[in-house]
């Protein structure tokens, strides 16, 4: 990070491993209501995959993968997805976050399944964006990282 050499092995291994971490993080998010895991853990693993490339290749090169200006908007979009799911179910006659009133087809257990999925996608997006933004803000003002 401070004394970064352009090591081919570290760069190649981190760029190879990062997509697999992302795939497993997506599995954790989308399979979270059947197995351990969920939006928070999956979002943190997505952020860890992004930060790994930032550590190995440097923040300037990693802007090609995930630009610095995307962190806060993605986090806000995740919070908006969470709030919007609750608010749509409130508009359709139920309480806030009462998934049984979501306007989708199928029986109420199917509604709850979809509602929890929306919530976890929102939480995962928010955690990924905010953790990456925290890392970028910590390194702000340092030119050659």
């Amino acid at each position, binding site marked *: 990070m401070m004394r970064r050499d352009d090591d081919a092995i570290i760069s190649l291994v981190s760029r190879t491993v990062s997509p697999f971490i992302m795939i497993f993080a997506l599995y954790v998010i989308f399979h979270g209501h059947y197995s351990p895991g969920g939006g928070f853990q999956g979002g*943190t693993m997505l952020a860890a995959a992004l*930060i790994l490339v930032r550590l190995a290749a440097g923040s300037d090169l990693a802007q090609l993968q995930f630009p610095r200006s995307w962190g806060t908007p993605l986090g806000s979009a995740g919070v908006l997805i969470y709030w919007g799911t609750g608010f749509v179910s409130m508009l359709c006659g139920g309480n806030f976050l009462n998934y049984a009133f979501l306007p989708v087809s199928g029986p109420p257990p199917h509604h709850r399944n979809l509602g929890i999925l929306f919530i976890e996608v929102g939480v995962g997006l928010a955690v990924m964006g905010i953790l990456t933004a925290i890392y970028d803000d*910590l390194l702000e003002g340092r030119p050659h990282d």
Partner: protein
Amino acid sequence: MHWELEVVLFVFLVGAALVALESRNLLTAVVSLSVFSFLSALLYAAMGAVDVGFTEAVVGGGVSGILFVVTIFRTSRKSKD
């Protein structure tokens, strides 16, 4: 579950915590704190709380260690006292 496994994990947990507290080098303290997080994640999994252990391993061992290291490199490296 297996109380022998938990005793071994607790011994290493206390050792990692003592190293993290008493170390002069801040990087050693951060690495030892990550070891502490992984050991406590193993303890949670051994006690049956797999979800809590997963969160502890991902957050405590993965991201917070990186943030601590970045903070150390942004400040001066060794403690002065």
